[in-house]
């Protein structure tokens, strides 16, 4: 059985569907990412998978158990790192980990050994007996990741694991996760493209409650391959109305996603001549995962 299996999942809040017919599966040991802008439905999807929300319709299985019919067994087999910290700030790092180990029924001996082990894995051994409220954001995150992996979960869920962290700390977190995950399957949500590209073996791009694309990061780029023509002109608004291709506006320039740049540029000059728009700059670039993402989610980063 796949560690995560989601079939036609829906979640309705009042009048709108936060998750709208989502299906995907994750392979054993894989790092799978849900990429999407804020409000795309990533966190709602994770909350359903970790049994905090009930789906309106559809099925979801985690570690082989149905999240609605057997939430207890699902909880036994998962680790969760939430977007906002759920550490007890008035406790030390060690106390937080020891309480966690107890909750998952570890024996005294195993608990002591494993707590020391994960503390050194995330390089917090020297701060083990300090109160967590004095920790920096990055230290708290590291501790939460250590806690999430403490009980050897089959699946680890991370909701925006590096939100608000600086680039160096972010890289460290990726390193820890990759090095220490072992057999654990990881599913994370993120709105950082770099994170999806570097961390995830497979990525699903989510937009307005739906998955709009899903593949390996490199394959996604290939699949949606095309060229990006960047244009700067004196009357962008007028030009925008005349274009018949997918584009976004960024930094006062138009970035148009096209299959054939030569033909598009010829067309562009024709439009410019007819409409009396003067083109100031024009350049070409290869599409990246970011372009794919921007194109599929309509430019809301």
């Amino acid at each position, binding site marked *: 059985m796949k560690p995560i299996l989601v079939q036609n999942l829906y979640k309705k809040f009042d009048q709108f569907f936060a998750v709208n017919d989502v299906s995907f599966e994750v392979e054993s040991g894989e790092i799978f990412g849900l990429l999407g802008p804020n409000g795309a439905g990533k966190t709602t999807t994770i909350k359903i998978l970790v049994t905090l929300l009930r789906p309106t319709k559809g099925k979801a299985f985690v570690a082989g158990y149905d999240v609605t019919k057997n939430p207890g067994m699902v909880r036994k087999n998962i680790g969760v790192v939430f977007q906002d910290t759920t550490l007890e700030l008035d406790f030390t790092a060690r106390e937080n980990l020891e309480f966690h180990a107890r909750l998952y*029924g570890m024996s005294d001996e195993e608990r002591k050994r494993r707590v020391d082990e994960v503390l050194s894995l995330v390089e917090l051994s020297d701060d083990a007996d300090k109160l967590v409220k004095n920790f920096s954001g990055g230290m708290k995150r590291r501790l939460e990741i250590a806690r999430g992996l403490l009980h050897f979960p089959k699946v680890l869920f991370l909701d925006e694991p590096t939100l608000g962290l600086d680039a160096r700390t972010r890289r460290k977190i990726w390193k820890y996760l990759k090095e220490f995950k072992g057999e654990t399957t990881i599913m994370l949500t993120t709105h950082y493209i770099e994170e999806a590209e570097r961390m995830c073996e497979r990525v699903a791009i989510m937009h307005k409650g739906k998955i709009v694309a899903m593949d390996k990061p490199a394959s996604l780029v290939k699949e949606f391959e095309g060229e990006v023509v960047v244009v700067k002109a004196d009357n962008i608004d007028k030009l925008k109305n005349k274009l018949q291709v997918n584009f976004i506006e960024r930094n006062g320039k138009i970035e148009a996603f096209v299959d054939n740049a030569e033909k598009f540029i010829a067309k562009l000059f024709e439009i410019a001549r007819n409409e009396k728009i003067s083109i100031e700059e024009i350049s070409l670039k290869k599409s990246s995962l970011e372009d794919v993402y921007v194109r599929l989610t309509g430019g809301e980063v």
Partner: protein
Amino acid sequence: MSDLQAIYVLLMRDVKKFVRIKSRLIGSLGMPIFFLVFLSLGFRRAYIPSLPAEVNYSNFVVPGIVAMVLLFSSIFSGVSVVWDRQFGFLREIIVSPASRTAIVIGRTLGGAITAILQAFILLSLSYFIGFNFQISKLPIALFVMFLISLTFTSLGILFSVFMRDVHGFQIIMNFFVFPVFLISGSLFPISELPPIVKELALLNPLTYGVDALRWSTIGFTEVNPFLDFLAIFISCICFIMLAAYFFGKTEVE
């Protein structure tokens, strides 16, 4: 197994926080001490018809103020589940294998322990300012305190289930906690109330808690010790069961 561990973890969390955060303890004892001192001073010569001559007002009011501490502290512990569940450590426990019932029990016991420790400190302080209670009956008094705090912590958790955010807390304080406190016989005998209001007081679980506490400390009772224990015990069980049931059904948004 993990249920017992969850109860232990939640209980120890409250005990450790109680010991570690001194400012919270001092803050929580300020108001009841002022109540105690100034009510005792202000009413020391007042004539209250339903109080027998041998019971002076200071001795009468101490169990009432102890009950007040239990009520306020317990309700607060219970209602704080709202933000603990949204932003706090409780989330970590909600996704663990521990059952919802174990979480409610652990949280209730933790809140009750905190409340009792505060109330016990107040009771000890009052001993030094002249409150003479029957020390031999202290275990009974502690048991009553335990029942009162379990009742109101679980009631607080029950409120938290139906609260969307922290703003509801003010409404609960002003429209529930204060009336419950004022008509419980904490500050004056319920016999002084007009008949209709007295009927209301007799529907209030805290009335029985206060009466049992007063009976076990100074031997004065307005209701009936047996009825007191029965009423407070039943409400305790009911609220814990309701809290466990409704807490188990809620989603975390």
